[in-house]
């Protein structure tokens, strides 16, 4: 498999597989473009024509409702024809290989595949084998990357704080299994965040995370000291218990964002969560929509960011 480049030889985005390695200018352009869609939306101008006649296939090998919905809405608002395929139980269970699935759908003259798969590297695989001109947009591959989530997190932070550069950000919870964390770390680092901290028990911190530019904390109070942004990660309760954590209660006591802890944050600090929330685990329930919370803004920004990415990849080529 040859290495895949996300940028074409003119430096334009041709796939979005990961935020790692993308230049700051590319990230900033995507955020600015998303802002334009948000502005247009506030003026009642929700529908755009830039993907008219283009076909976008949402190919989800993992169950997802909210992410798939926002990709679908984004593509529709750009006037693309959209096809949603939940592949988990269909062709692969009949023995079709991923390669054959890709080739079959390509034959339907798709212009872009939005792919979610539980194997890390799945989006790279599709990009390596897709026909020239067919774009791959990673909607989450294993633990590796979730670049549009990363972008919407960056956009949300920028809206509230006015910038990314110089900020102190703390990610809390299951870093080990989190593609959201990895994408956020790459994006924050590229855009010049001053400090990126990760806080979790050692069982949920992957080896060598410091090489990505994150500092490791096992004491949440120390980790939250003077931070601007708290990013809570979703805990997958089913696979955590016993193997990684003694109990959810113990996790909440040591790593949950409680009122007490939130009270010690700087006044301007914001709290983020990619959803869906486990109330009473990552966060004390009634704080989810409290004054610091930007969780619903994240959802709205998700649509705009996905429109921006789709337009930059498909719209710019027309």
């Amino acid at each position: 498999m040859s290495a895949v480049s996300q940028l074409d030889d003119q430096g334009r985005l041709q796939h979005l597989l990961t935020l790692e390695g993308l230049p700051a200018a590319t990230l900033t352009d995507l955020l600015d473009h998303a802002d334009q869609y948000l502005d247009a939306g506030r003026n009642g101008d929700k529908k755009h024509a830039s993907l008219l006649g283009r076909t976008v296939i949402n190919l989800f090998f993992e169950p997802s409702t909210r992410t798939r919905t926002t990709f679908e809405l984004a593509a529709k608002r750009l006037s693309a024809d959209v096809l949603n395929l939940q592949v988990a139980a269909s062709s692969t269970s009949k023995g079709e290989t991923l390669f054959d699935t890709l080739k079959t759908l390509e034959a339907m003259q798709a212009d872009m595949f939005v792919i979610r798969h539980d194997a890390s590297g799945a989006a790279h695989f599709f990009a390596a084998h897709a026909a020239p001109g067919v774009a791959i947009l990673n909607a989450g591959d294993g633990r590796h990357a979730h670049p549009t989530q990363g972008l919407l997190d960056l956009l949300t932070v920028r809206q509230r704080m006015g910038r990314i550069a110089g900020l102190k950000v703390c990610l809390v919870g299951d870093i080990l299994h989190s593609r959201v964390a990895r994408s956020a770390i790459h994006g924050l680092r590229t855009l010049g965040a001053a400090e990126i901290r990760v806080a979790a028990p050692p069982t949920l911190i992957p080896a060598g995370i410091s090489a990505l530019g994150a500092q490791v904390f096992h004491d949440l109070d120390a980790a939250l000291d003077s931070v601007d942004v708290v990013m809570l990660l979703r805990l997958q309760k089913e696979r955590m218990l016993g193997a990684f954590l003694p109990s959810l209660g113990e996790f909440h006591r040591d790593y949950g964002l409680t009122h007490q802890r939130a009270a010690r944050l700087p006044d301007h600090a914001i709290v983020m969560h990619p959803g869906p929330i486990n109330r009473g685990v990552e966060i004390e329930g009634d704080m989810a929509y409290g004054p610091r919370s930007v969780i619903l803004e994240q959802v709205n920004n998700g649509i705009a960011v996905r429109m921006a990415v789709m337009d930059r990849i498909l719209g710019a080529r027309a």
Partner: protein
Amino acid sequence: MSRTLISNVRILDPVSGFDGPGHVLIDGGKIGAVLAADAPLDMAVDQHIDAAGGWLVPGAVDLAARFREPGHTAKADFASETRAAFAGGITRFALPPDTHPVLDTPAMIVRVLRISKAARSPWVMPLGALTQGLAGTALAEMSALKTAGCVGLSQAMAPLDDPLLARRALEYAQGLGMTVHIQPLDARIANGGCAHEGATATRLGLSPIPVAAEVAAMRFWISLVEDTGARLHFGRLSTARGAELVATAQARDLPISADVAAHQLFLTDAALDGFDPAAHLMPPLRSEADRLALREAVKAGVIEAICSDHQPHEADAKRNPFPLTAAGASGLELLWPLTLKWMTEDGVEPLTAVQRVTSTPARRLGLNPPVISAGQPADLALIRPETWTLDPKQLLSRGRNTPLAGMRFTHRVAACWHLGVARHRLSD
């Protein structure tokens, strides 16, 4: 009976310790004569090869090569891999028991030997299954396997989760004087992982295999050797701590030996960048510190042998997202070139390098080590110092899966004789 004279060649024979110029006459299936450099060459021969600049070495003995037959002939078979083995200068190899069906009965050994004979393959040295079906639940008929021709026993890459059965397996093998070959990996610690635990796996989001998965398994097996006195060979070490454990065990005179796959001396987990499925190997490619420690251990003889760990795959097996691909690389044709590249890079004595792929692995399989002297079987390889670059499309193995594409080598296998017959010959 055909007679071939190989003249003006540098002869390297690690058993006699001879490294010097001379001429070798192949007479029928045997070495007819080894002549001093100044000896007259006025004999009648059918073929005369002036090998000036070349090295004549014994055919390599590979401690782990899968020919995929029987059972996995979509990947390769004895016919295809025989060509590759001879092109790689390999004349004997140990066949791990994870064929399909598994090599756990005398009938299966007979079948493999018959397939090998029909394909005129290199000498095949079957390793019998340590447990029935490699299932790890009942001892295989080790004595019968020995009688049928097995040179050792192995659990291949299958887990053996029952510690008591593992101990009994070693005891039983010890009673038969058979070496047990173990590729150390604690499957519970590895937990289905596919990459070395470290920054690369974390960045790529690949599930990690900690170093402890290898080391914990080794400590477990070593403690059983301490109990039983059984002879144990660790195959395909990948970690510095593993090499250190072998050194410690050897210092205590435990009957423990080890080998390493040649590619482990050259690559690290950095090769996984971009999710290259060719670099999906088991054990996984590890850190630079591990790679350097493995090189040192081979040089010092703590790791006594280098093997190909040949695992050819069909293209589809590697055409998937990285974690879903099959592990393993095609290696027969690269065993000599990698060994001699290591020799060149690390300033290793040529005889030592030759020994690591010939006499030491032969002894480990209980075989007479190959010797370049009159009357011995003519299993020989001619090596040419030559710079060349690997293009996987040129491999003769049906498996073109290698993470070493584009690597530059210092030596090339120019010819290979098996029982006196030239089975591989590069055109000049």
